[in-house]
Structure formats: structure tokens, C-alpha cells
């Protein structure tokens, strides 16, 4: 799956649209003809290596950068024409949860309420909502600096949605947070999404990517794949993944280098992950091939690929394609 395909929901309710978006910094093309759509209530994950252009795309969508060409439409507003209006319609949560550690929970909420111009009458109710969502009822007067990771994360989310933005941008939202807290956080995100909030998440964490409805993979400023996690795992890996447990992973790896139909091979703990064209064929062929070289794997089986496998394969394939085209 590639490029500009619309997501399953109706195009009319697309809240975030990037249309042939390009951003240049001098000669450097940071965003290279990227197109995608995110429907209302959808959670889209942005994945990509460092420097791939994820942050640039997000900043453009937030109205912080002007596109060099193409359009970005957020909440129905053309970002290039009216960046200020766009910012009213989005909430942003950054990696380090920019909360003020020497202010209390309530003071932080009040501060962000002011920043986002939440009307007084509404603010009290929204603050109540945020506090309950974060589970901080009864701790409104606690200094934020005394809260642990999970609380901070939920509070930061609360601050980002005080003004009921229809669109939410999350930048690496769960770095350094415990798994249990992370799950609770994602529950909240899903709950917001079910109420119609559109969410765009930028992340490295493959586990996080699994929580998204759709994923967009960015590499060198280009969109190289989109789809749901399940779709990508099924179709994008370009083969079948085998698990090969053995006693001598190094030697086995070498032996498989020129094996027929082996697309990629890497060590994984005490085993190898082998990407082959056809699992059935290789399940019988490979053990024979290895036996001929005096290597006896303990166990060979097909395993479902993880998103990380998909990610790495796609990036590698893209890299190869780029080199071939050059």
C-alpha cells in the first residue's frame, strides 16, 4: 500500500488532509510530495527513522511552517492561509510533557486554559474533566514535580484537550512510561477518538504503533507505506517470516547468506529470523541445506511478523529502490 490512498472512512469527514505536500529548506527537501488523509475519530501513527521528516510534517500541519508547495488542510482550514485559526483547533502534547514542575496540578490546568482561551464558564468543567481523566481527583494541589511518569502523562493530555480540540497531535507521548500506565493512557486516547477526536501520533515505539488504527511510514521525507497494523503485517513485509532456533547463530547466518529464496536474515537472541519468499517451501528446504553444511537447527517455524520487522524491511526496500533509481 502506498502514497495517496484514502482511508476507509468517508472522505467528507477527513479532518486532516495533506495533498502533495512539499517543504524545502534551501536545497534540502524535508517533505517530498506527501499525501494522506485522516478521518474523524481515527488514530494515525507516524513512524520513521530519525530525520525522516515526521516533525517537519507535524509542524507544517500545526501551522508553524509554511508549505513550499501542496496543501495542508486541518479541521477544514488551509494551513497556509490561516495558521492562527488552525492552532485554535488543535491540541499538542510534546515528548517531555511540558508541564511546570513547580506549579500545582490546578495551576497548570488554569495556565493552559488561559493560553488556549477557554471561556471561564467552561474552564471549570473542563478542568474537572481533565482531573478525573488523569485520576488526580483529590490531588489538585499537588506540585507537578512530585508526580510520577504516568500521572504526568495523563495530566499533560488533559492540558492539551482543555479547549476541546477536534484534532490532537501527540509527539512520542509515552517515552519512559511504565507499560501499565501506557495502556491506561492509550485507553484514554481511544476513548477520545470514539468521541470524534482525530489523533496523529509520532513515535518510535513499535508497541505504540500497534495501538493506532492506521500507520504511515515516512522515510527521507517520503511516505513509503500506509495501512492498518494488521494490513501492513500481512502484506508489506514482502514474504514470510521464519523463526530458526539454533546453537550456532553466527555460523547458521553465514550458511544462509546465499540460500535460495532467503530475502533477509538476522540474529535474534539465540535464534534467527529468516525472511523467505514462501514459508512452506523453505520450511522443508532450509533444514536440508543446513544439514548439508553440518548445522542442525533445533526448531524451525513460521511466525507472524512484528511491526518492527515490517518497518525494517520497508525501509531497506525503499533504500534499495532509491539507489536503483539514482
Amino acid at each position: 500500500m502506498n502514497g495517496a490512498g484514502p482511508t476507509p472512512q468517508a472522505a467528507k469527514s477527513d479532518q486532516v488532509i495533506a495533498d502533495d505536500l512539499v517543504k524545502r529548506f534551501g536545497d534540502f527537501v524535508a517533505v517530498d510530495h506527501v499525501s494522506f488523509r485522516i478521518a474523524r475519530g481515527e488514530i494515525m501513527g507516524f513512524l520513521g527513522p530519525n530525520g525522516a521528516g515526521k516533525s517537519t510534517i507535524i509542524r507544517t500541519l500545526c501551522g508553524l511552517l509554511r508549505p513550499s508547495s501542496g496543501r495542508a488542510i486541518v479541521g477544514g482550514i488551509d494551513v497556509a492561509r490561516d495558521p492562527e485559526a488552525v492552532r485554535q483547533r488543535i491540541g499538542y502534547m510534546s515528548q517531555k510533557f511540558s508541564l511546570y514542575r513547580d506549579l500545582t496540578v490546578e495551576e497548570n490546568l488554569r495556565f493552559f486554559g488561559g493560553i488556549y482561551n477557554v471561556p471561564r464558564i467552561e474552564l471549570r468543567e473542563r478542568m474537572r474533566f481533565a482531573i478525573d481523566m488523569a485520576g488526580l481527583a483529590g490531588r489538585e494541589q499537588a506540585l507537578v514535580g512530585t508526580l510520577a511518569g504516568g500521572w504526568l502523562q495523563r495530566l499533560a493530555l488533559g492540558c492539551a484537550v482543555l479547549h476541546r480540540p477536534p484534532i490532537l497531535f501527540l509527539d512520542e507521548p509515552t517515552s519512559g512510561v511504565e507499560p501499565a500506565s501506557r495502556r491506561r493512557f492509550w485507553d484514554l486516547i481511544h476513548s477520545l477518538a470514539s468521541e470524534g477526536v482525530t489523533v496523529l501520533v509520532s513515535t518510535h515505539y513499535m508497541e505504540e504503533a500497534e495501538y493506532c488504527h492506521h500507520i504511515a511510514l515516512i522515510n527521507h521525507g517520503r511516505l513509503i507505506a500506509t495501512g492498518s497494523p494488521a494490513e501492513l503485517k500481512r502484506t508489506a513485509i514482502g514474504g514470510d517470516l521464519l523463526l530458526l532456533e539454533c546453537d550456532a547463530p553466527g555460523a547458521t547466518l553465514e550458511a544462509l547468506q546465499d540460500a535460495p529464496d532467503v530475502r533477509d536474515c538476522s540474529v535474534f537472541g539465540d535464534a534467527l529470523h529468516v525472511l523467505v519468499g514462501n514459508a512452506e517451501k523453505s520450511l522443508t528446504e532450509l533444514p536440508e541445506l543446513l544439514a548439508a553444511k553440518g548445522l542442525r537447527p533445533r526448531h524451525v517455524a513460521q511466525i507472524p511478523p512484528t511491526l518492527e520487522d515490517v518497518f525494517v524491511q520497508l525501509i531497506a526496500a525503499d533504500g534499495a529502490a532509491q539507489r536503483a533509481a539514482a
Partner: protein
Amino acid sequence: MSPEQPIIQVDGLIKRFAEFRAVDRLSFSVNRGEIFGLVGPDGAGKTATMRMLAGVMRPDGGAILIDGIDAVADPEETKQHVSYMPQRFGLYEDLTVDENIRFYADLFEVPSPLRRERASRLLAASGMTHFGKFRAGQLSGGMKQKLGVICALVHTPKILLLDEPTTGVDPVSRRDFWRILYGLREDGVTIVISTAYLDEAERCNRLTLMHSGRALYCDTPAALKKHMPGTLIAISSADGRAVRSAITGKPGVSQVLLVGDGVHAVVDNADMRIPQLREDIRLAGVSISDVAVAVPSIEDVFVALLETGEAK
């Protein structure tokens, strides 16, 4: 020191910061030539443990034996054969790549010709051959990591201690990094690596799953997964929330989790519960495409272990 004995032995290790117990009677052992993981979320005590192993922080209790040497009584003795890579970049930003490598080679008294040969080999393996004259401060994050590893390896240590070297690094670079580690393992180096990425646990030979300064589990990843209390099932559906409401609270069901393409849950007995749940879902009027047993990730095991309060 017989080869069967562990090269690192930690017993009842304790570290306090004022009232807070960062490391709370931690015990584990590392075998010669293996890649051992200290795995756990932030705040688990990984960095404190690594620092005590490296001899840059004093334990408040317990024992550490490194290659037969009492590392608590005599940390300096252990430093000749151990290389440490702290979480925070520890090299000199105002020195060049070459100067940093040379500095650490000199500290371990590596003969010059050997240093030159090793340095060029390591730089080539990292794709940094032409970066010798760059100041370390000018390098990208990924390259800084690689430089850290090169400086740690220039004197061929027996033991390599890496504190969260892959945090914030994208999956492609992470895979490259692990390739380097596996190469080192082939050369017989023992590696202790700490990580907050639970999925990296699967790449280690053995690991210790840590939480709040304690070890929840210490064994191979495969054994760890078998130790999962219950079975993980995956229900594919477009309406995850409805599925979740339908099955939460049902007997034998715990840890119901919304994921992108449906719901994950842990059941006590798959054969018994799956049909029951299918029925519950049907009654609730929700459409699903599949219910199947799934392989738990290390994170699933971690959360389940925490939940049930199990510890080794």
C-alpha cells in the same frame, strides 16, 4: 575460575537514595559470553544497577562478583577488563572522533599500532571512516552512540556494560546496533545491556525483568513467555470498544486491552473461554472477524506478572 561459573554474580544488591530504595535486594547472574538484559520501565533501578556494576557508584548492601573479583570491596580491580557505556553521552564533545578514541586507548594502554588497526576496523564497521576529524559534539545522536561503542571496544574488554544504548533510537538503527552486539558475542565478549524497550528482551540470551528495584523474573525469553500466567488471545474487530465492553468482567478474563485492530485479553484457559467469549460477543451484537490464541509479547508477560504479583 571455571568456564561454567557465571562471570558476573549479583546477590542481594541494595541502593538507597535518601528514603527511596532504587535497588532492593536484587540478585542475578550473567554467564560468560552471553548477552544479558536488565529489562524494565523507567524507575526500575536499571541505571543504578549498571553504575554499581561499573564501579562508579557504591552499593549500600549486597555483593557483586565480577570475574571472581569482589567488586564492592575492590572496584578498581575490575575496571581493567570491563567497559562501560553510560546512558548519557560520556565522551568529550570538544575533541574529535580520533582524539576520543586515542584517549580511551591510552587509558587502557593499548599499543599504538594495535589501536590504529582496531580503530579503523571499528570505524569502518560503523560507517564512520571519514568522520575522524569531526568534533564529537557535531555528530548525530546515532553516531554518538556508535562512537561510544567504539571507544568502549578499542581495548577489547571481556565485559561490556551498556546502559540503555537504544533509547530514542529508531528501529533501523537499533537493528544495526544489535548486529554489532551479536558480532561481539561471536568474539566471546559478555554483554550486559539495560533497556526500557520490553521487546528488546527477546533479543537477549537471558534477562532479568525488573520493577521497583526488584527482579520479577530471571531466565531466557522463551522460558519467560512460558511463565506467562494465562493465555493471550487476540480478537480482531472494527469495533474494539464494543468488544471490550462485551467481554470485560467475564469469568476468567483479565487485562482486556484495546489495540489498533481489535482487542487483546488474557484468559485462564483458552479452550474453555474462547467459545464462551464468542457467545458473549454475539449476544452483544458486535461483529468480529476472528478470535485466536496469540503469542504474548514480553510486555504482555510483564504486565501479567505485575498484575498477579508473581515473582521468581
